């Protein structure tokens, strides 16, 4: 019998028992989809684990002062050196810690902050106390110096450099956007100071206090770009060693240095994809842009990287890097060393095998420095491993359920085929009389079950990406770099499930081939 004829006969027999065939095909499809998506998912999960284990964020050690943590969504805590200086960790402490340890390779600050190109009132700006209208009382401005610092503001009781400078001995410390190498204040050119003088003059003269005009305040130099293609993008406030720890290289321009940080230079380094988005025409380096109401000079553009933020999932190519304000010790020419709180200090090792020992070293160092138990050191890797272990167990259960689903579907196919063999016993006898060999009879039944398995497998494979997405959103809450479907493993999984279900058609087919023709013809 020609294979095409066998197939056509199979289709006719399946059509003759359509409802039960469809149900079995659908059950097989579900089983195949589950197994295929689990195969692909577990593969992606392993790849992701591998990726995360190699991620610089998991070679980090995070040092926080005990009892001094601030919740992210609480308002910025006013910095009071009298009560917090004892346990306050500062930028300076990083270098001291590095000097006192041997296994710790890097130390840096790295806080997250959304950078906005918008003015307050435009709806997208998330700065606190600034959401209202075009005018704001100056007292509000000075009360909340961290306004505009976004999420990181909670960790940074001090304002970002140059934003709304807190009056330090009356000095004007605004870096008015001239960028790097000019840490000195520029006196009366600051509209804020100008307004204050105006207001004081009015108060002295007993006149009505002038309204503060935001438009005037936000005026920037002509060469500063205020209109950018993006409304906002993720930023990280870092110190210089972050770039080394994360292996980020500049493709153009340069990274900023510790001198830039300490001087409070308003510079910015852009990820490669972000640069393309912001400056489609190129020429990013040297441009001055306004972000969070401050003017930044683009210092460099990073080479593309495959790294993604382990917390937000953003590609590091889409991130901008600005100096961390906690590292600033030079305010308008005045060097201030008073251990400014940095919230969290980050240290990193080159080889995560050293992480445990490095933790001990750091603990010993900080305990000696600040007293036992004054700082808490956490290793994200440990949390990751604990979480992965839990996830692996869940995956094992889901895999078992998927396999069970396929098994049950295959048993249904097995039962259906066995039932058909019994129901068609007389027909088998007739076909034998017409010249079908035992082998031919068996092949006919195998062909039918294979056809149903294949149909189920094709449908299952077709819907498996959806099941995969479902699994992904259900099982891995955090976004990872493994968001694309692994088609190879999806296909291999579906193929394996198909072959598995195929086996269940063999026994009924063999039974059909064994049927005695003479008895079959006499049966009813």
């Amino acid at each position, binding site marked *: 019998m020609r294979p095409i004829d066998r197939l056509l006969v199979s289709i006719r027999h399946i059509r003759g028992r359509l409802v039960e065939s469809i149900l079995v095909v659908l059950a097989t499809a579900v089983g195949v989809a589950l197994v295929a998506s689990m195969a692909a998912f577990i593969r992606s999960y392993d790849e992701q684990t591998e990726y995360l284990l190699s991620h610089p964020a998991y070679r980090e050690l995070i040092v926080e002062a005990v009892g001094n943590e601030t919740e992210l969504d609480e308002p910025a805590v006013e910095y009071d050196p009298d009560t917090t200086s004892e346990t306050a960790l500062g930028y300076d402490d990083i270098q001291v810690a590095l000097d006192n340890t041997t296994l710790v390779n890097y130390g840096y600050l790295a806080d997250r902050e959304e950078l906005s190109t918008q003015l307050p009132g435009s709806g997208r700006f998330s700065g606190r106390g600034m959401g209202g209208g075009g005018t704001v009382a100056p007292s509000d401005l000075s009360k909340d110096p961290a306004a505009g610092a976004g999420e990181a503001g909670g960790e940074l009781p001090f304002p970002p450099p140059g934003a709304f400078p807190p009056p330090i001995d009356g000095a004007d410390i605004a870096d008015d956007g001239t960028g790097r190498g000019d840490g000195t204040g520029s006196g009366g050119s600051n509209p804020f100071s100008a307004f204050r003088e105006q207001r004081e003059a009015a108060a002295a003269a007993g006149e009505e206090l002038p309204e503060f005009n935001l438009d005037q305040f936000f005026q920037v130099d002509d060469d500063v770009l205020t209109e950018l293609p993006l409304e906002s993008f993720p930023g990280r406030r870092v110190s210089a060693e972050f770039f080394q720890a994360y292996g980020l290289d500049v493709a153009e321009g340069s990274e900023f240095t510790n001198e830039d940080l300490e001087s409070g230079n308003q510079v910015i380094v852009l990820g490669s994809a972000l640069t393309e988005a912001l400056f489609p025409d190129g020429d990013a380096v040297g441009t001055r842009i306004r972000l969070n109401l401050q003017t930044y000079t683009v210092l460099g553009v990073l080479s593309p990287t495959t790294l993604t933020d382990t917390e937000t999932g953003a590609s590091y190519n889409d991130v901008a890097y600005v100096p961390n304000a906690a590292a600033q010790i030079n305010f308008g020419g005045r060097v201030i060393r008073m251990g400014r709180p940095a919230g969290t200090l980050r240290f990193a090792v080159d080889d995560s095998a050293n992480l445990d020992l490095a933790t001990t070293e750091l603990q010993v160092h900080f305990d000696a420095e600040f007293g036992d138990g004054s700082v808490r050191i956490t290793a994200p890797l440990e949390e990751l491993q604990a979480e992965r272990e839990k996830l692996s167990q869940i995956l094992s259960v889901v895999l078992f359920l998927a396999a069970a689903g396929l098994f049950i579907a295959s048993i249904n196919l097995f039962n259906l085929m066995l039932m058909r063999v019994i129901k068609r016993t007389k027909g088998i006898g007739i076909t034998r009389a*017409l010249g079908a060999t035992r082998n031919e009879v068996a092949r006919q039944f195998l062909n039918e079950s294979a056809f149903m398995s294949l149909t189920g497998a094709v449908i299952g494979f077709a819907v498996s990406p959806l099941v995969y997405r479902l699994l992904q959103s259900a099982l891995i809450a955090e976004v990872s770099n493994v968001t694309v479907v692994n088609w190879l493993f999806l296909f291999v999984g579906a193929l394996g499930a198909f072959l598995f279900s195929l086996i269940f058609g063999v026994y009924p087919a063999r039974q059909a081939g064994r049927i*005695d023709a*003479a008895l079959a013809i006499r049966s009813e």
Partner: protein
Amino acid sequence: MITLEGISKSYDLGSVQISALKGIDLTIDRGEFITVMGPSGSGKSTLLHILGILDTPDGGTYRLEDHDLMTLSDKELSRIRNQHFGFVFQSFNLFNEFNALENVMFPLMYAGIRGSERRERAQTLLSQLGLDHRLYHYPNMLSGGEQQRVAIARALANDPTLILADEPTGNLPSDKGEEILQILDGLNRDGVTVVMVTHDDVLGRRGSRCVRLRDGLVESDTGRAA
């Protein structure tokens, strides 16, 4: 053409052993129209199934032309059934999922003949049997007589030399049964050997030779002068 010697067959029905055939000697020559008669349980159908190599005897030899069928493989036996034998059953035994044309095409399919040729041959056979207008009818849409004619067309698909008919008129009214018998007569005139099982004495005399069975043995055989 066919020589049976000492053919025996018994069925094992659980605890009871039933001997259906107890040593049958039978020689069938080309062109004969043999009717096999006997009471129920005399082994008529078993003999027919053994002749049609649907069943294998427990003992004895079966020679077809020069072949000892006892030594052939299932594949070779199936090919003989397909190419040389045609079966006609009392209850027609058509495939209900397939229309008349497709039913006739089945033996051609097992012979590995291509679709177009198959269709042509099946169509010709059906129209020779007066079923031009029933090609695409399914068995349940056909009368008993029509169904049996389709079954005969199917039996003739590969131009067999031997037709094995098991009470072919048993389920038909007498006029329709007569039609079927005339078709078989016609085939026999054209040189096809026919073996027909029946329990009807009238039909038993239609053949050129009548073999009577009783209790698994040949009781009488009109064809053997000796």
